[in-house]
């Protein structure tokens, strides 16, 4: 039982680390939401299941699986709502400008950093 718990702990810690690195490093809001929405949920579920295996069969395991069910339902829902709000607020999707752009220049090259729909509309109107 302890071996199963340790394996689940290591896997959950790995997925949580992937989520945090993706949140820190990815260039766009939508890619960051993609990193958090799936990897964070899976890491949380694995760690909570590992704690349940470590605890054994008791009342606390029922509460833990209640938390598992609630996080599995609500965490992707919350991030989907957040992404839809960002898209309707005028967030544009990051595209790579050129092959020689790297580092902070990519971060500066994100269109729609201010999430201002009127500014984006004016920019599109001016370009077209």
């Amino acid at each position, binding site marked *: 039982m302890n071996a199963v718990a340790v394996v689940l702990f290591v896997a959950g810690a790995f997925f949580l680390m992937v989520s945090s690195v993706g949140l820190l490093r990815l260039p766009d809001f939508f890619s960051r939401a993609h990193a958090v929405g799936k990897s964070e949920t899976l890491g949380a579920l694995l760690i909570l299941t590992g704690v349940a295996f470590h*605890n054994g069969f008791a009342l606390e395991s029922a509460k833990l699986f209640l*938390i598992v069910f609630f996080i599995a339902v609500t*965490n992707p829902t919350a991030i989907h709502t957040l992404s839809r709000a960002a898209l309707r607020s005028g967030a544009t999707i990051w595209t790579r400008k050129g092959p020689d752009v790297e580092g902070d220049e990519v971060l500066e090259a994100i269109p729609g950093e201010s999430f201002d729909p009127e500014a984006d509309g004016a920019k599109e109107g001016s370009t077209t």
Partner: protein
Amino acid sequence: MSTALFGLAVFIAVLMAVNFVVVAKGPTMFDRLLGIGAMATNAVLLLVLIGFIYERPDGYLDLAITYAILNFIGVVAIAKYQEGGEPEPGQGKARASGEFREQGGSGPADGEIP
């Protein structure tokens, strides 16, 4: 075995610090809100682990359930409040935020204090 739980709790605390860096420097409000949601999910895990480290998991599990519910309600409420811009295709232009932005001197997404 409690040392494994303690090490995992320390690791999750470090990941919460990394998420707080994103919350502090995120370029937009939605990035900060995303980081806050990730921090709150990590906080739920940290509450569960603290409850099992100190061998008193009853109250801490209830706290974790409550904090998960409050995290979901808070993120969805702020997201729906900040949601504006284009209306849905079937609903015409009857969206609340669009009307609010057209009528009132400053919409909620403008970041200005009226």
